């Protein structure tokens, strides 16, 4: 009995195609044999025949297009395309679109990210101020320059983890490309961290003196690099690996500067040039970000498998 029912369901699914003669030849015989023995499926076929006839009648009663329609097509195809204006319009449209995406992504990024970044930088700032309340020293700025990049790196760890973030999954199901989503989220969070860090630096230089730009240069390059590295590692290897990577970079920098054994210092010395704001660091950071953007759609596919 159960075989008969499941066979009925199989045949019932094929009936519209059987009526159209689009069912595979090897299945036609099976449908016919089943129909000969099954009253229920015969009735269903009769119902489909009625639907077929009525659908065709309904469509046949519809009007056709007007006679001059094709002329309109040729007129449109023969119209010269305004090249320069289009390019400018395209650029403008892209900018507007990016603005919309950026605005749309703002409420979708986890609220915790904004709060954690701001809170950590605030704690760091007050730590610096209370620990180094000695006028004329820039130790506070140096300490800030060490930790601020880590805070920024940490804040991008979870901005693109579809399996852990239902709102990101929703964003990715929309027609906006995954690269655009990642780019806008990165721009939002990096911009936010930069703004908070700039404000903190301004406050520090106001309290302890020193050049604002020089203090900013202490953390700007490293922040960009650590953020880019964290982003890429979190996409490719996951959050934990990214955190380890960012911490290792900072630790190696500390070793190179610190008073540990000279062998360590020598080994880690090349990293000193990475913990600065210079063209090499910025190019490297941008290259890492580009790799993240290339990798983003792939990561999404892996997540959905």
């Amino acid at each position, binding site marked *: 009995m159960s075989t008969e029912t499941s066979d009925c369901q199989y045949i019932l*699914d094929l009936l519209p195609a059987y009526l159209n003669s689009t069912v595979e030849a090897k299945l036609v015989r099976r449908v016919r044999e089943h129909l000969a023995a099954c009253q229920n499926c015969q*009735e*269903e076929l009769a119902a489909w025949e*009625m*639907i077929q006839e009525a659908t*065709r009648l309904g469509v046949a009663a*519809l009007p056709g*297009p007007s006679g001059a*329609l094709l002329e309109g097509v040729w007129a449109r195809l023969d119209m010269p395309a305004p090249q320069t204006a289009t390019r400018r319009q395209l650029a403008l449209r892209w900018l507007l679109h990016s603005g919309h995406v950026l605005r749309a992504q703002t409420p979708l990024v986890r609220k915790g990210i904004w709060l954690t970044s701001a809170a950590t930088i605030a704690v760091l700032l007050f730590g610096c101020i209370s620990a180094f309340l000695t006028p004329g020293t820039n130790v506070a700025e140096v300490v800030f320059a060490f930790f601020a990049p880590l805070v920024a790196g940490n804040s991008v760890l979870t901005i693109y983890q579809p399996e852990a973030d239902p709102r990101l999954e929703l964003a990715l199901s929309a027609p906006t490309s995954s690269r655009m989503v990642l780019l806008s989220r990165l721009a939002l969070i990096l911009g936010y961290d930069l703004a908070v860090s700039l404000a903190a630096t301004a406050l520090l230089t106001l309290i302890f003196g020193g050049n604002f730009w020089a203090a900013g240069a202490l953390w700007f390059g490293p922040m960009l690099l650590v953020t880019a590295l964290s982003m890429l590692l979190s996409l490719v290897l996951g959050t934990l690996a990214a955190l380890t990577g960012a911490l290792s970079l900072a630790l190696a920098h500390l070793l190179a500067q610190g008073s540990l054994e000279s062998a360590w210092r020598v080994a880690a010395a090349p990293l000193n040039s990475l913990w600065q704001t210079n063209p090499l660091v910025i190019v490297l950071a941008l290259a890492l970000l580009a790799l993240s953007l290339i990798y983003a759609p792939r990561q999404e596919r892996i997540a959905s498998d």
Partner: protein
Amino acid sequence: MQRKGCMRESLAEQDQQMITRIAAGDREALDNLYLRYRQPLFRFLLHLTPDYGLAEELLQDTLVAVWQSARSFQRRSSVQTWLLGIARRQAHNTLRQRGLPLADASELQALPTTDQEPEALTLARASRDELVAAINHLAPVHREILVLTFVHELSYVELSQTLGIPIGTVKSRLSNAKRALRLRLEAREEVER
């Protein structure tokens, strides 16, 4: 049936040649393609939008897109399936841009599963005119699959390509269309009683 198959094959061959000629810039080939497909394409578009003027505009968009993308036709599907796919995409883009309702799966309401009697019985009681009227009042997504199946005679594989849904969904959507039709006819019977 074999003869019908042979005819289909030779028509399909002619269609493919027309697309090759259109790709080479032959205007007469587009004229011929239009003559062959204007009625089915236009009527299909009229199922996606009831606005006659908009349907004409969409048919023009479709032909412009055919002229511009004939080179990228891969022969993976039949010409008819390819044309219907382009027309459907143009319609969806334009309707979305203008904020008009789409024949989208999202509008499918969960159909009640009251299996009091087989669909066949309700349908058998209906007159032909009642059935035509009921089909015209179905949700666009159901009307669309019935038209593509019975008027354009697309196979399940072609339906799956054109609608961008798996074959399993093609089967369930067809069966849902039939159930929706039965519910509509039953509701009419209730009113008449």
